């Protein structure tokens, strides 16, 4: 370590702020690369969403508002149909609970990591998405970065990407000529890579295999549109049934 040339910044009353800010910058720098795949995927899907909403008569203001408030990728696509039929808010609410039921798994897994984080915790929970959960539960922050700040920037960046991409799609979706077909595969690849990262730990492997097999089975049994909730039930049942074996 180099001697600090500005000792007044380390000692005394004004010390806390610059150090804290520097810590935050470190956290942002650590979080940014982890979210780049999300940026790629969201840019593609978020813009597609903005464009799609525009074709249904909902301009960038509406699509961005939906992304900023509801912030739930797959449900927003489902909701396009709801916005173009009769007015049924209760049906929309219930459908939203079902489509997003998988979030309950994320909360359960993050009870411990999100413990004691203070005010930031409510925001982390508000914007908890598939991608944010996957990164937060798999990637460890560097030793010199506060966990709280790391989780915050992952969550904030992912949120901004989605809302920003929606606005972009709504504003200039029709003028884009670059063929982005297949770019949303970045999110599939992200989950594949994070699966492999989990796989590195031997004790994670049975659970990973259970996840793959149970979801594939429920895809075969219930079809692509209804697979998530049966898969969740199946995974929970198998994990609970194998608890004694998995815990050793």
């Amino acid at each position, binding site marked *: 370590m180099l001697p600090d040339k500005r000792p007044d910044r380390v000692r005394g009353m004004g010390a806390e702020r610059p150090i804290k800010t520097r810590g935050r910058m470190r956290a942002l720098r650590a979080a940014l690369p982890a979210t780049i795949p999300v940026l790629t995927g969201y840019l593609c899907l978020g813009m597609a969403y903005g464009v799609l909403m525009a074709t249904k008569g909902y301009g960038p203001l509406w699509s961005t508002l939906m992304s900023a408030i*509801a912030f739930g990728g797959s449900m927003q696509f489902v909701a396009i149909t709801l916005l173009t039929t009769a*007015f049924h*808010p209760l049906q*929309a*609410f219930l459908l939203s609970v079902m489509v997003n039921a998988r979030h309950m798994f994320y909360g359960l897994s993050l009870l411990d990591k999100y413990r004691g984080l203070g005010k930031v915790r409510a925001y982390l929970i508000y914007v908890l998405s598939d991608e944010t959960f996957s990164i937060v539960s798999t990637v460890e922050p560097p030793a010199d970065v506060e966990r709280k700040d790391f989780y915050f920037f992952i969550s904030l960046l992912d949120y901004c990407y989605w809302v920003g991409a929606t606005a972009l799609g709504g504003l200039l979706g029709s003028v884009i000529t670059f063929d982005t*077909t297949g770019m949303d595969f970045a999110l599939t690849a992200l989950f594949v890579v994070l699966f492999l990262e989990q796989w590195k730990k031997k004790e994670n492997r049975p659970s990973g295999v259970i996840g793959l097999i149970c979801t594939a089975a429920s*895809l075969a049994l219930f079809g692509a549109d209804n697979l998530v909730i049966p*898969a969740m039930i199946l995974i929970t049942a198998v994990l609970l049934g194998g608890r004694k074996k998995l815990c050793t």
Partner: protein
Amino acid sequence: MYLTPAQTLLMILAIAAGTQLTRWLPFLLFPESRRPPAVVTYLGWALPPAVMGLLVVYCLKNVSLLAAPHGIPEAAAVAATVILHRWRGNVLLSIAGGTAIYMLLVQLVFV
């Protein structure tokens, strides 16, 4: 627009409320002040790898093995991602490589 602006806004709020309920439920059921039951702690520990498996399959759910191109682009791109990741262990490189190969395949080869 098929709904009035006020109705649209209410729909957005209803959808947001449903989503938020799923995000908050575990944290409301097991607040910070109390230790969650052992079975919940166990699920919290065991779920993440299973969820990654779920999300991978979920992303590929609309791939048809029977109709052309029989899931070949997806299989090839996932394989490329895995091989790249095993070889270099660089998250961004693996994802960029897999995505590039997928885009190439669906835009140029299997059109």
